[in-house]
């Protein structure tokens, strides 16, 4: 039998491992700052770049795509080579992937604080970066599939299946949700509007959780857990069922993020049913992981790697039970918009993703550096500190979430809202926010211990850049020979770069060209009194997006009496037909703003933005005093109006060349006059004027509609 000798690439694994640790610390620290700002609004030092609305997306992007992303690549590059008995397909692509991904992260860390955001959760990065993500992701996919094609082990272990599903699905999700119309270099408007945009976004958003945070990590669990325990997986058969059932069901569950919103009922029910079905495969996977350890619990007591894994898999089980429960409409009516969602997300993220990443790092560093872990004691300290950190994070936030939900819905015995002032409900949970920061501090302290431990381990050992291995080449059956070898030849015969570029071209073509105009022909019932935003309102809306207001304020009143009493008429699908992107939000740290227009005079908004605590004592909203001094940027207006027209908003032809600017001036003057009545002398060309224009417009269209018109929708 002829045996081939080859080398596994450990350098790329180490690179991703170091990136994982660094970005983990950065991402979690930004989260810490965001957490502190929620009970101490002055923590941003009145600097716009680190205000909550801008660093919240920075935190989510950093921990998901930088920390977990690099962790995923680290684990895949290590395990895939060993499972396939082959070096990675191309060293060039490996390093292109690595540096490409790090550049995207750096670009995110620069653009998000500057306020360049699409506002779509976990997809905030603006269009040039979105294209870069597509390119790098395709490179990763080519590298993954190429390695699988040249594998020496005929059987593809279950972990590989999870990796393939991840690569393919993330590509489809990213492209579909990234359909935007550029309106300048770092500004774009979603192709989809209102309800449609919401549906696409949460179809993407949920599957980002499913196929970025879950499936790759399940694959990693199926590799690293048996390896660390040195026992085969409890049931290989179950793992096969787990895989296929999970990926088939997951992709449909997205609409559970939009329960009781203006999304059509049938879509909501569909999302809820599929979410409930997800319990079965998820728990199958969790039990498969935990049962692998049966008879090996003595090892768990000694080995920190296994300790972290046990908590990770348990957290996965808890989160995947809780998720479907939250997707039940009646539970969701209480939990939606509250901190319950945050607690759910963090029990999954800190427990499942965080702890599994730590276990992989503790597993890999001694092996990459051919030595023992520097200190098992310190790793145990990390374990307990991290675990306490999770408890101190999620328990207060669960309490906060349920408290908010109950207080928002509470009526007194006369039938009035018990807590008509939204602020009361937030002041109530501020102590919980403070406790959460304690949990976060503990968790980060644990990560720092790990970083030091890994550093000392690396110091003590000697890095092995390549591991030599031997295996027989793949025996091919005659049928496979034809199909696979031809692929193989094509990929090897032509320059690798060609393959990458070809697929990239297809993807970019998709983003730029395959966006058919029929996409935006609205089928949502139009309400005649709903008209496009005036240019000044549009600019104000862009400021609202830039500042990340939607991180704390929803614009979607659900059809419950507790909401209509508090905020006004519930939101209708037809009200959002010109909303590119939709701004429904998913969180209420402040009141809903869907019917904010006309509730307060312009002067109130002016003072409130300058210092929220001057109008609302106890408010946790940050100051936005820079809006009072910064001039409204008017140069981009024609671009923005044109882009809006292209996605289907009926601004008349030529409107952007003169008439729009005149309208801006006229409306700004009106607002300045309003402000003067409130005793404020303001400049008409400041940003605050545009924001006030937008806020005063919110939800007013439907009020001017004739009675019988609104009754229809």
């Amino acid at each position: 039998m002829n045996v081939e000798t080859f080398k596994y690439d450990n350098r790329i694994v180490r690179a991703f491992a170091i990136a994982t640790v660094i970005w983990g610390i950065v991402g979690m620290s930004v989260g810490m700052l965001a957490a502190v700002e929620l009970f101490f609004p002055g923590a941003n030092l009145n600097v716009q770049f680190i205000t909550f609305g801008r660093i919240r997306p920075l935190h989510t992007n950093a921990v998901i795509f930088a920390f977990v992303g690099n962790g995923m690549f680290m684990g895949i590059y290590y395990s895939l080579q060993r499972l396939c008995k082959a070096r990675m397909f191309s060293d060039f692509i490996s390093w292109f992937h690595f540096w490409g991904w790090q550049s995207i992260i750096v670009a995110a860390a620069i653009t998000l604080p500057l306020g360049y955001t699409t506002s779509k959760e976990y997809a905030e990065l603006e269009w040039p970066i979105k294209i870069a993500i597509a390119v790098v992701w395709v490179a990763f996919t080519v590298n993954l599939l190429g390695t699988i094609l040249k594998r020496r082990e005929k059987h593809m272990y279950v972990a590989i299946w999870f990796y393939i599903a991840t690569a393919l699905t993330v590509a489809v999700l990213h492209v579909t949700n990234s359909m935007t119309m550029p309106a300048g270099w770092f500004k774009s408007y979603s192709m989809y509007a209102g309800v449609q945009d919401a549906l696409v976004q949460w179809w993407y958003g949920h599957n980002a959780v499913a196929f970025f945070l879950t499936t790759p990590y399940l694959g990693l669990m199926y590799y690293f857990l048996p390896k660390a325990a040195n026992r085969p997986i409890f049931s290989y058969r179950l793992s096969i069922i787990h895989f296929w059932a999970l990926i088939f069901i997951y992709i449909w569950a997205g609409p559970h993020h939009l329960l009781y919103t203006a999304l059509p009922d049938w879509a909501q029910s569909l999302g809820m049913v599929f979410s409930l079905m997800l319990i079965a495969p998820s728990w199958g996977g969790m039990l498969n992981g935990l049962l692998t350890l049966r008879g090996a619990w003595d090892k768990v007591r000694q080995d920190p790697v296994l300790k972290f894994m046990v908590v990770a898999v348990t957290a996965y089980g808890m989160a995947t039970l809780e998720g479907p429960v939250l997707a039940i409409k009646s539970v969701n009516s209480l939990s939606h918009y509250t901190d319950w969602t945050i607690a759910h997300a963090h029990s999954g993220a800190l427990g499942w993703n965080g702890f599994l990443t730590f276990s992989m790092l503790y597993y890999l560093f001694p092996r990459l550096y051919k030595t023992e872990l520097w200190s098992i004691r310190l790793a145990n300290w990390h374990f307990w500190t991290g675990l306490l950190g999770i408890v101190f994070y999620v328990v207060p936030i669960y309490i906060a979430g349920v408290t908010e939900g109950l207080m928002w819905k509470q009526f007194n015995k006369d039938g009035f809202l018990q807590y008509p002032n939204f602020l009361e409900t937030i002041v109530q949970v501020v102590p919980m926010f403070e406790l959460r920061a304690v949990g976060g501090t503990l968790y980060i302290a644990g990560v720092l211990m790990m970083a030091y431990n890994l550093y000392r381990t690396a110091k003590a050992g000697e890095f092995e850049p390549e591991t030599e291995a031997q295996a027989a080449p793949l025996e091919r059956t005659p049928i496979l020979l034809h199909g696979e070898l031809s692929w193989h030849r094509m990929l090897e015969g032509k320059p690798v770069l060609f393959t990458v570029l070809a697929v990239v071209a297809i993807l970019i073509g998709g983003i730029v060209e395959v966006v058919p105009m029929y996409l935006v022909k609205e089928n949502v019932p139009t309400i005649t009194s709903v008209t496009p935003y005036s240019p000044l309102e549009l600019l104000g809306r862009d400021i609202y997006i830039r500042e990340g207001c939607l991180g704390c304020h929803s614009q979607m009143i659900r059809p419950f009496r507790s909401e209509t009493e508090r905020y006004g008429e519930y939101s209708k699908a037809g009200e959002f037909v010109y909303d590119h992107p939709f701004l429904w939000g998913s969180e209420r740290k402040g009141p809903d703003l869907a019917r904010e227009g006309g509730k307060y005079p312009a002067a109130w908004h002016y003072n409130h933005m300058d210092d929220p605590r001057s109008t609302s004592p106890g408010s946790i909203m940050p100051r936005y005093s820079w809006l009072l001094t910064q001039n409204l940027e008017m140069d981009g207006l024609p671009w923005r109006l044109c882009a809006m027209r292209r996605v289907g908003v009926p601004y008349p032809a030529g409107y952007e060349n003169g008439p729009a600017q005149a309208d801006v001036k006229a409306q700004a003057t009106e607002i300045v006059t309003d402000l003067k009545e409130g005793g404020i002398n303001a400049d008409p060309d400041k940003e605050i004027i545009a924001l006030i224009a937008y806020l005063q417009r919110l939800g007013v269209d439907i009020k001017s509609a004739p009675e019988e018109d609104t009754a229809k929708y």
Partner: protein
Amino acid sequence: MSVIIILILASLTVGLLFVGAFIWSVRSGQYEDTVTPAMRMLAEDPAQTICKPKSKDKPT
């Protein structure tokens, strides 16, 4: 709600890709043995695996 068509198409594309992968995996014998793969991945030294008997013909 025309966008639901895009989403269904995108979801079905992914779904069909997976059905195809599933059919391929069953046909090519990926699941004919559900015991050894779980053991084999534990072997750190690749030299061990080549000693495992590998049937020359397609297993029946």
